[in-house]
C-alpha cells in the first residue's frame, strides 16, 4: 500500500511533517473542488421564471368580485376611462383557493387586503384572510361579455396559477408537480401554459365546457406535456379555455398507458 512509513493517529498532538503537508494539500484541493462545484452548479441552473411575489407587502385593493369559476377581482384601471377593468385572480394563503373569502359576494363591490403576484400581464392577489369587505353597491359596472376566439387545439403544461405566476420558481415541471397538485386540489385556479415561440408564453384559465370548476379532474395531468382542444374565450385581459377534461391527451412517455 502506498503512503510511506509515517504513522499518525488523530489523538496524537502533532502529525509527522510529511503527513501534515499531505493533509494540508488534500484539504486545500477538497475545498477548491467544493468551490468549483458550488459555482458550476449555481451557474448551470436554468434561467428563473420572471414572476414576482411581493412577499411581506400587503396592499389595499377595491373592485368587483366574481365568484365563478374562480374568484376574481375586477379592478378599474386608474387614470383610464377604459370599458374593461383589470382582472385579478384571487387566492388564499398557502395552497388554497379564495372561494371561502368571497362566498356570497358575487357581483359586489368590495375592499380587500392582499399581496400581489404578477407575471407577464397576469395579476393575482393572495387575499389576507377575513379582509374582504363589501362596500355597498350591489354591482358597480357590469363587465363586458366574453369574446369567443373559437375552438383551438393547444399544447402545453397544466400548472397551478399561484406558484406559476411567481410564488415559486420554478413553478412548473416535475419537481414542482406535487406542489401544483396540492394547490389545484386546494382550489387554486389551474392554467394551461402554452409556449408561443421565442420564449413567450400565454396562460389559459381552465374550466369545463359550461364554465365550471374542473380542478379535481386534472390531478393526474398536472406538470406533464398535454394537448387540449377547447373553446377559447377572452374576457378582458383573461384567457379562458373551456374543455372536456376527458379529451386531454398526454404527450409524454406515459401517454400510452394512461
Amino acid at each position, binding site marked *: 500500500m502506498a503512503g510511506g512509513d509515517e504513522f499518525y493517529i488523530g489523538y496524537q498532538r502533532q502529525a509527522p511533517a510529511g503527513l501534515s503537508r499531505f493533509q494540508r494539500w488534500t484539504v486545500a484541493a477538497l475545498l477548491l473542488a467544493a468551490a468549483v462545484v458550488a459555482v458550476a*452548479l449555481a451557474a448551470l441552473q436554468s434561467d428563473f421564471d420572471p414572476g414576482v411575489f411581493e412577499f411581506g407587502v400587503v396592499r389595499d385593493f377595491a373592485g368587483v368580485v366574481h365568484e365563478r369559476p374562480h374568484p376574481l377581482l375586477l379592478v378599474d384601471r386608474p387614470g383610464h376611462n377604459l370599458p374593461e377593468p383589470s382582472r385579478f385572480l384571487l387566492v388564499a394563503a398557502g395552497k388554497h383557493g379564495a372561494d371561502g373569502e368571497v362566498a356570497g359576494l358575487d357581483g359586489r363591490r368590495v375592499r380587500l387586503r392582499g399581496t400581489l403576484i404578477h407575471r407577464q400581464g397576469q395579476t393575482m392577489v393572495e387575499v389576507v384572510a377575513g379582509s374582504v369587505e363589501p362596500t355597498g353597491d350591489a354591482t358597480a359596472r357590469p363587465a363586458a361579455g366574453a369574446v369567443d376566439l373559437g375552438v383551438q387545439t393547444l399544447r402545453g403544461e397544466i400548472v397551478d396559477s399561484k406558484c406559476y405566476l411567481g410564488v415559486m420558481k420554478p413553478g412548473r415541471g416535475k419537481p414542482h408537480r*406535487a406542489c401544483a397538485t396540492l394547490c389545484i386540489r386546494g382550489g387554486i385556479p389551474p392554467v394551461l401554459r402554452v409556449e408561443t415561440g421565442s420564449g413567450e408564453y400565454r396562460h389559459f384559465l381552465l374550466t369545463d365546457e359550461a364554465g365550471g370548476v374542473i380542478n379535481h379532474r386534472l390531478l393526474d395531468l398536472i406538470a406533464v406535456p398535454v394537448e387540449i382542444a377547447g373553446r377559447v374565450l377572452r374576457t378582458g385581459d383573461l384567457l379562458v379555455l373551456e374543455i372536456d377534461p376527458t379529451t386531454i391527451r398526454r404527450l409524454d412517455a406515459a401517454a400510452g398507458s394512461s
Partner: protein
Amino acid sequence: MAGQLGERTVSHAYQAVGWNRQKRVYDLTLLAGVVGYLALFVGVGAMLSPRATVETLIIRAFGTAALLLLHVVLSIGPLARLDRRFLPLLYNRRHLGVALFVLGLVHGGFSILQFHALGVVNPLLSVLTSNGSWSELAGLPFQPLGLAALAILFLMAATSHDFWLANLTPPVWKGLHMLVYVAYGLLVLHVGLGVLQAETHALLAGLLALGFAWIVAIHLIAGRRERAADRELQGAVAEDGFVEACRVGDIAEKRARIVCLSGERIAIFRYDGKISAVSNVCQHQNGPLGEGRIIDGCITCPWHGFQYDPADGASPPPFTESVPTFRVRLDGDRVLVHPHPQRPGTRVDPAALQEES
C-alpha cells in the same frame, strides 16, 4: 501506559466527544468548507439569476452540499486503502456523516415546507403519495427516495458514537452503517428522477454520472487490491501444522506483515526482538491492525488508534476489547504461524529473535 498515549484514551470510554486538537481543526475546516459552499452557491446563484427566489437557492444549496459531502465520505475509505496518507481524514469521518445529515435535514425540511405544507393533505403523507406515476421511469416519484435516504442518514448520525458501536455490537453497527451505500443509491435516483427532470443542462447530469463513476471506480480498485491481499498463503506446511508465512527480514521493526491463512487475515508483528501474530481485524470498526504499528508496546490500529497487547491480543486495562492470537515460531529466519486461532485475549509466547551480531 499501554492503552493510552499521553492522556488520550484509545478505546471505549463513552465520553460524549473526546475533543482534541485534530478534531477541532477537522471540524472547523469542515464548518468553513460547508459555510463557504453554501455562501458561494447562494451568492453566485443570486448574482447570475436576480429573479431567483431565495428559498429555491437554499433548497438547492443544501441539497447539493449534502450530495457532494456524501461523495467525500464515500471516497475516504477506499482512498485510505490505496494510500495510508488519507487515514487522518478517516479518523473523524463520522463528523462528516453528522454534518451530512444536518445538510440533508435542512434540504428536506425546507422542501417539505415549500412543496408539501399548507395544503389540504398532511405534508408527510403528501411526500409519500404525491407526484406518483409508476408507469414510466421519468415519472417515478422522487420524494420518497430522498426521505428514505434521510432516514438512513439519521440512523447513522444518531448511532455514530462508540457507545452505540459497543451496545449494538460491531457486526450490527457495521451493517447499519453500510446502509450508507443504499442511501447513496437512493439519492442518485432522487436527483436523477427529480430536479434533473427539470434542470436539463447536460453538464448537470454529467456531474452526477461522474460522481457515481468515481465512487464505483475507487471501490472496485480498492476491492481488487484487497482481493489480491487475501490470496491464500501457499507456504510450506510443517509436520506440526505451522505454515511458513514470511522471512524475519520481510517485517519492518514495529510493523507487521499481513498474510492470509485458512481464509483469515493474520498480522505478524516484529517488535523489540520478538514476533507475535494476531487477527488483522480490529474490534472497533474492523480496521486493519497489520497496517498499524507498535506504539508504547501496543499494536495500534491505523484507523482510530485502538490498542492491543501483541502477546495476548487484549486491550490494556481498563479496556476490554481483544482479538484472536496465533501461535508463532521461528525456523532460522523463517517465520511460521499456526493457522488455528486462539480465543481472543489468549496469551501466546512471542517468538524471540536471536541477537543480531
